[in-house]
């Protein structure tokens, strides 16, 4: 192990300019050192900027501030010693397995014989023997991602970047591929020195990484760095493994530390009607409340448990849980989800009663929903264009977030029968559909 890091990021910040001149910060105060022999995991939910950091390291994007250096040299474009494995495999469908693997070497204008030798080596190493002349469309997802690995390894990179490489695969295939990768890594048979793995799967991070950087959102930043010293191969059922998973859940559900003095701190960025809301369906909301209310949780559920119970990834579970918290149907703390009294009565109620409870909470705790309702009440026509609210929201957030937030408001409002929405004319109204 050498003492100088393979990769060094210091105070990296990435921001996009908004149309109104403001800045949208995606990533802030990012510090990361990667040493030889390490697998570092970037763990977080979508929108936490972990993939953005990976692209900065790959030289595919440029930081707004801060420095990235690879072997002491600043990263200012795709570097020769850094290769990437993509979530969607990113194979060229018109090239065979062999041609896909050879492409990276051809780009370096390597002699023909060398290209051939190294490509076949990589194909052999990753277990693709016999598939050389197949086209990606003929392969299963697992085999396609193997091509993705072979293609990255063939250029003999010092650093391998992996962007959620197993998340597009089914559970069994993903596990096989992870194990194969860890075996090759443990035996030192891959021509790589360090790995950066982006994932939103907590168990995967604990299974594979030596260090885990837990990302928080809005803006993307590191919440905590966790060292994993468990020996390989790791066992998911090992108590110390479970403990680590639990600890990460606690970190990820901790309330933002930089909360303003005023009362409750919501988990969604922005204040009042300017909050960015996730478009979570009312079915998921009531489904999760029912699950937590029922046995064995009886109103209070441990997040890792309920996540594996419902087979939900954190990317799916967290927005639902946080929306319940926003609506005061549940509290989220210390890795637990605990229903409030109203949450419990919602879970026990029939459909009409549920709608009444939901309506009360929606108008009381979601300022934007209350705002929409107020505007409709005040107008003589009892109707308003969607664009009116979009314009208002865009003072606080970008176009996509505004669209998404309004979709949430439409969905919840329809469920609660707080107002109606006509998609063809993009109009809110108080009318009941005929």
């Amino acid at each position: 192990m050498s003492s100088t890091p393979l990769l060094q990021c210091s105070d990296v910040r990435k921001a996009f300019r908004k149309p109104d001149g403001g800045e949208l910060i995606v990533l802030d105060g990012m510090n990361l050192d990667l040493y030889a022999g390490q697998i570092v995991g970037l763990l977080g939910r979508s929108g936490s900027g972990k993939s953005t950091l990976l692209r900065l390291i790959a030289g595919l994007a440029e930081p707004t501030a801060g420095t990235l250096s690879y072997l002491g040299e600043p990263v200012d474009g795709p570097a020769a010693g850094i290769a990437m494995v993509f979530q969607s495999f990113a194979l060229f469908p018109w090239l065979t397995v062999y041609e896909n693997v050879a492409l990276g070497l051809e780009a370096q204008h390597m002699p023909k014989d060398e290209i051939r030798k190294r490509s076949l080596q990589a194909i052999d190493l990753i277990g693709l023997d016999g598939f050389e002349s197949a086209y990606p469309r003929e392969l299963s997802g697992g085999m396609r991602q193997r091509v993705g690995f072979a293609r990255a390894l063939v250029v003999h990179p010092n650093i391998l970047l992996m962007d959620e490489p197993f998340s597009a695969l089914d559970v069994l295939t993903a596990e096989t591929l992870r194990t194969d990768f860890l075996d090759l890594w443990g035996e030192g048979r891959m021509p790589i020195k360090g790995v950066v793995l982006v994932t939103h799967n907590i168990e995967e991070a604990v299974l594979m990484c030596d260090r885990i950087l837990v990302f928080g959102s809005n803006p993307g930043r590191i919440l905590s760095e966790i060292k994993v010293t468990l020996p390989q191969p790791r066992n998911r059922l090992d108590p110390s493994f479970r403990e680590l998973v639990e600890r990460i859940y606690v970190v990820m559900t901790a309330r933002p530390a930089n909360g303003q003095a005023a009362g409750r701190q919501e988990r969604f960025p922005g204040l009042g009607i300017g909050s960015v809301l996730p478009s979570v369906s009312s079915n998921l909301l009531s489904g999760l409340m029912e699950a937590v209310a029922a046995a064995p949780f009886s109103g209070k559920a441990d997040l890792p448990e309920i996540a594996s119970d419902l087979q939900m990834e954190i990317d799916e579970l967290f927005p639902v849980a946080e929306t319940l918290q926003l609506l005061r149907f549940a509290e989220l703390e210390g890795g637990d989800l605990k229903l409030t009294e109203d949450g419990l009565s919602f879970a026990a109620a029939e459909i009409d009663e549920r709608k009444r409870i939901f309506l009360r909470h929606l108008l009381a705790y979601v300022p934007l929903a209350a705002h929409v309702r107020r505007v409709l009440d005040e107008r003589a026509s009892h109707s308003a264009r969607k664009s009116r609210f979009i314009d208002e929201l865009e003072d606080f957030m970008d176009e996509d977030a505004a669209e998404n937030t309004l979709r949430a408001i439409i969905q919840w409002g329809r469920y609660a029968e707080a107002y109606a929405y006509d998609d063809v004319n993009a109009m809110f109204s108080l009318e009941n559909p005929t």
Partner: protein
Amino acid sequence: MRRFEQFGILRNLTSRWDLIAFVVVLGLIAFLGEAARGLFVPLTQLDIVPLSLDPRHLPEYAARTTLRMLVALFISLVFTLTYATWAAKSERAGKLLVPILDILQSVPILGFLSITLVFFMSLAPGRVLGAEFASIFVIFTSQAWNMAFSFYQSLRTIPIELSEAADSFRLSPWMRFWQLEVPFGLPALVWNMMMSMSGGWFFVVASESITVGHNTVALPGIGSYIALAIEQKNLPAMGYAIGTMLLVILLYDQLLFRPLVSWVDRFRVESDPGEDTPESWALTMMRRSRLIRAGKVAFRAAVLATSRAFNFGDAAERVRAKRSKRRSLDLLWVSLVAVAVAAGVWHLVASLVAHTPVHEAVQVCGLALITMLRVFVLIALASLVWVPVGIWVGLRPRVARVVQPVAQFFAAFPANLLFPIAIYGIVTWKLQPNIWLSPLMILGTQWYILFNVIAGAAQLPAELRYAATNFGVRGWLWWRKVALPGVLPFYVTGAITASGGSWNAAQVAELVTWGNTEIEAKGLGSYIADAATAGDFHRIVLGVGVMSLFVVVINRLFWRPLYYYAERKYRLT
């Protein structure tokens, strides 16, 4: 089935740029006309090979015509790969280039011919070559625009991860173009090439035999052969020509496009195995002969060798360059555009307004209204017939397999070959030409409605149909709630193509001859045709300009909103 996506990319472009593009295009056309007029060379110098109606010459004529199509296709391809790439890579250029393309595809294709003919003749005075240029140029204009559109669209929609993979493996821009961008755009491009080609036959027939003023230039080819047969009222010769045309189109389809479509299927990013892969016996044959493998190996070697030889910049450099913004260039670009617009306006004013009395312009607009009415009524009538037929056929896979290729074949067949028959009917029964010439406009284009509707009905999910049956949805209710909404996006695509084709056909359909019988329907098409025969440039430019304007406005105000509405509300994904 794949669709045209010609509107997909224009959604976000402001109308300001459209207006600028319109002025630039029309200005350019007027300029070409002016320039050509100055260079006018007496056409009597042309050494024209006399044509013969002897059917023994037909194979040679067919070969000449086919060659013209191929040359034009090649030029269109070169144009596509450069113009579309430029428009997609440079945001600055794209802002103007894309609307220009959109306007260009609204200009009636035979209008291009009328305006540019003398210009091309003057390029090679005294030889047939000039007329050859003009004919090829016409075919080019009937193919290039939608090919360029499709490639531009592909370039803009390359999946981000594929593009990142190319960057991170440091492909040089040259390699990136040939290994990523071109292959990705190929399926859509081939499909559009096929569509363009089927339109091309119509124009090759119309462009081989051209009359300007007192001179007729006839290039050896099927089109000229037909023109001569019409002039001499030779019915058997017409029959031979139609037979030859059928054969040529069939061969083209089987030997060129079926294999291409089938081969290119593997370039599609999203497709999974097991989907209906298009089949081609010709491709299978070529595969067996290892021709394709050899071609592929040669192609890759060529890309590599050129990339190596020229060492086209480092990928990292390219990424860096992409980031640096150059304000001064922006300014230069804007001022260039401003100058071009000013020049366009000046030419328009100079060549149109100054030479055209106001009442003439008003009259031309009136004629355009008549032609517009014709197009809309015809589309409506064709829809009444072909939508139910298309749905009926599309829901029966076995029937569809037979009918679909036939419909596509009819769309490719140049309908102008059949016009003399119409004349015969009109003369015999003393029919009103203003009404009875109209159907000719849609004779060749109605098939687009049919085969799009068939494709739409065929992709209607079986479960939806079972559900309708299960709930006892029948009769008129079934048509209203199930079948018609289900095929709407496809129907609109077909109707747009049919409408565009009908405007294009107006110039030959509103003025038809058979020997010395000439029948004319009042309309903008016959106005342009008259002006072209008389060689009156100002009237040609006026007519073509007004027609382009009408097509653009109708597209913007009617078809495009309809297309988006159908896509949003009725597209089954």
